[in-house]
Every structure is written in C-alpha cells, then in structure tokens.
C-alpha cells in the first residue's frame, strides 16, 4: 500500500508545479462556462417550462463541471503512460516489484486530483458570487453536499478505471490515438459532458443513465444542484458504486 501512496505523492506534487498551465486552464474554463450558460439562457428565455432542470440547477451543473473538470474528463489521460508504452520506457516499470494496474491507478487519481485542486477553488469562489440564476448555488442541505462528495469520489474511480482499459489497449496497437479519440467522444456524450443528461429525450435517457458513463459526472453534479433527490439518489448511488467496483475488477 505504501508503494502506491508514494506514487500518489510524487505524481500529486508533480501536478502542483505547473502553475501557468493551471492559470490558463482556469481562464479557459471560465470562458467556456460563460458561453454555455449564455446558450442555455437563450433557450430558457424562449420557454423555461420546456426544460427538465431549472436555470439555476443548470448553471450550477455547468460551473461544477468546469471546476472539477480534471476529475472525470476522460480526455485528461496520462500522456506519459502512452509515451512509455510507445518508446519502451515501460520496460523499466515492468521490472518493478509492483502491480502495474494499481500503480497506474494511483498515479492517475493523483494526477487528476492535483489538477482539480489547483483549479477548483478560484472557480468555485468566484462563481458563487455571480448573481442568481447564473451563478453556483449553495447546496440545499448538508446531506446533499456529503452525498455529492461521495458520488464525486465514486465518479472519479469510474473515470480512472475506464482510462485504465484504454491504457491497456495501447499495448496491442501501434498508436493509441484512434482508440483514444473514439473512446473520448463517446464517453463525453454519454457522460453528460456535452449537455446534461436530463436534456435527452426520455427513452434514450433511461438507457444512458444506466451506463457507467453517467456515473462519472452526471450523478454527482445533479445531486449537488438538487435535481436528484430522495429515492432517486439511493438508486443512482448504488448504480454508481456498482460501476466503480465492476470497472475496477
């Protein structure tokens, strides 16, 4: 266990040292968030009753998504892993007395956490002061917030476990680009990264919500914004737990 923790530490501290990358990232995420909210605002103004989430919930969804982007975006994969498989540095990792899967897992989690820690604070702090209904709202109850944190962790593990599958596929291909591209665009669509899942037509939505991709960000973000409550939370929580265990095994 110590070995993996140590891996985690090194990767985490490494991730913290890229300051200008973080600044640029924060800036992009602000612009992106503002653009998305403007688009949704235009839709809501034409008929706000036609939408499954309130404007406030949608804004919160978007801001949280931007703040914690690094945690569950499948796009953020460890380039170093692809590189090491391609150029053969992987040989060194294979002659270490550790399990490759666990090592890469802890490393990816650390990488994502370090990125998120650097970026989330400014976004969260500023967007909370943006006037209603375009800013980030404070969750209704403490339980909501705790459930949000819990599902966020589960979502992170599902996302990382999914990336692990792609890492493993690179052993069998000459270039991992193709697999990466297809996987990324599919996952983003199904995870609710393009538009929140409730905006999909009902029959499709029901299937999409059952897929593991929904657990990555759809669930935690919607719990926070109060769009999911009561029994629905229970259902998605267990589904989330199921997928994180399933994909890791």
């Amino acid at each position, binding site marked *: 266990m*110590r070995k993996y923790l*140590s891996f985690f530490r*090194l990767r985490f501290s490494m991730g913290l040292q890229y300051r200008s990358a973080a600044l640029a990232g924060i800036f992009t995420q602000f612009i992106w968030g503002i653009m998305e909210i403007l688009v949704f605002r235009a839709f809501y103004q034409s008929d706000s009753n036609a939408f499954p989430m309130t404007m406030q919930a949608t804004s919160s969804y978007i801001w949280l998504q931007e703040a914690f982007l690094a945690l569950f975006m499948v796009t953020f994969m460890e380039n170093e892993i692809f590189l090491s498989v391609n150029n*053969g540095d992987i*040989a060194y990792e294979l*002659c270490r007395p550790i399990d490759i899967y666990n090592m890469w897992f802890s490393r990816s989690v650390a990488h994502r956490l370090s990125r998120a820690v650097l970026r989330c604070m400014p976004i969260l702090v500023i967007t909370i002061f943006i006037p209603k209904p375009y800013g980030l709202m404070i969750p209704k109850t403490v339980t909501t917030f705790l459930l949000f944190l819990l599902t966020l962790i589960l979502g992170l593990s599902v996302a990382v476990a999914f990336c692990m599958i792609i890492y493993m596929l690179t052993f069998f291909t000459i270039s991992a680009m193709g697999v990466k591209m297809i996987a990324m665009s599919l996952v983003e669509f199904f995870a609710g990264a393009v538009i929140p899942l409730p905006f999909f037509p009902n029959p499709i939505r029901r299937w999409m919500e059952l897929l593991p991709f929904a657990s990555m960000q759809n669930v935690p973000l919607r719990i926070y914004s109060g769009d999911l409550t009561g029994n629905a939370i229970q259902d998605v929580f267990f589904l989330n737990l199921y997928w994180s265990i399933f994909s890791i095994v």
Partner: protein
Amino acid sequence: MIKVEHVSKTYKVFKRDAGFQSAFKALFHKEYELVSALNDVSFTIEDGEMVGYIGPNGAGKSSTIKILSGILTPEEGIVKINGQIPWKNRIAHVKEIGVVFGQRSQLWWDVPVLDSFQLLKDIYSISEKTYKDNLEELTSLLNLSDLLQTPTRQLSLGQRMRCEIAASLLHSPKILFLDEPTIGLDAVSKLAVREFIKSLNQKHKTTVILTTHDMQDIEALTNRIILIGKGRVLMDGTIDDIKIHGDNMDEAVANLYHEYQI
C-alpha cells in the same frame, strides 16, 4: 545462479516495399515475416560472475535481457534465476535484480533525482538504514552529490546515466543486468562507471551481465564472454579466446563476426 535452457523468441515484423503503390496494397494485405530473435539459446551463469554478452546489432542481446528480467515471455525454453522463472514469478523475481537500459530512462523527468530515488525506496520497501547506506556509497562512488537536487530534465546524458545506474542499485540487487550502460558517455564518466561496476562485483559479489558494443568495457570488466549472433550462442569463452582473432579487441570481434557470417 542463472540457468537458460533452449530459449526461443520470435517477433512478427511487417514488411512492404517503398512507394505509394505498395503502401496502398498493404492496406488490404499485410505481409509479415517471423524473425527469430532468439533461437535455442542456452547458458549458465554462476553467482558473482561478470559476463559480457556481445553480438552485432539485432543479434538478440536486448531480447535476452528482457526475458531474464521478466518483461518478455519466450515461446520455448526455460529460464531459472535463483530457482524462479522470471516471467511467472515476476514480482518476486524483480525484487532481486537491478536493470539498466542504456537507452531508456527510469527517472521522473520533471522532479529532482532524489524524488525518483525516494519513490524507488518505497517501491522496493527498502529500509531507512539500507537506503541511507546505499545512497551514500553510490553518491561517493558515482560522484552524484551535485546532481541529486537537479531535475532529471536538466542533466546531461552522462550525468543522467550515472543517476540511472544508482537508481538501479538502491535496493542492493543480487543480479545486475546492464544493457549498454556506457552508451554516449565521455571518457571520465565511462571510466567512473567501469570502476564502479568492478568494485560492486568485488565488494558485494553482485552477478553482472553486461551487453555493450564498446570492447574496452568488455576488456576492462569481464572475463567470460558469450557471443551471440542471429539469435544463437556462437561462442562461450574468455577474453583470450577472442583476442587470438586479431590485434586488438575491436578487430578481433569484427573478424569473429565475419567468420560466423553475422
């Protein structure tokens, strides 16, 4: 003890002629050749021995090292290193060995060398005392004191290689595989590395297997030499067996390569 018996390994190599036409044809029909990297290779190495493993480019030297360190699995044959089969008991096996691949890097690029060492300490579960002792010894022998706080990316090739060798020895391995450890080093670093390997072998009785194209390395370090070409062991003898083929080592080896047509 290292026991290698009748080991064979083949690779699939895709082939096509140059040019657009054949590139287009290869879209529909890929042709490949099976290249045998190792063909019925056998040898035995005792504890504490220093062995030079030489051969022309593409002879199968690196493949052998990779099989011995448990990274590749051969199609045929058996390897037993201190009673363990490397690719089956990988984790138990690699605790006992150190590997240096001269053309690869194991240090983390963006952080100081010491951080990489710390990580290795945890990976191999090295005790605090052993780590300190080994680090001290390696630092003085390889002259690392100025390098340890520097990020790896800012080291020169020779400086980095010295750190790489130190990194592979932190856990006091019983067997050390060196795959072209002196590639690209200046005269001073080369001598330092040679001196170091020699004293390591004498002091700790570490078994060393060394592949290189630098015949001076071989001359300075090893007594026994295994010559391989086209995946076969062609000769297993001493320096003197090679020296009789020419005036100096380089010439003698070149003559040998000619003689065996490899």
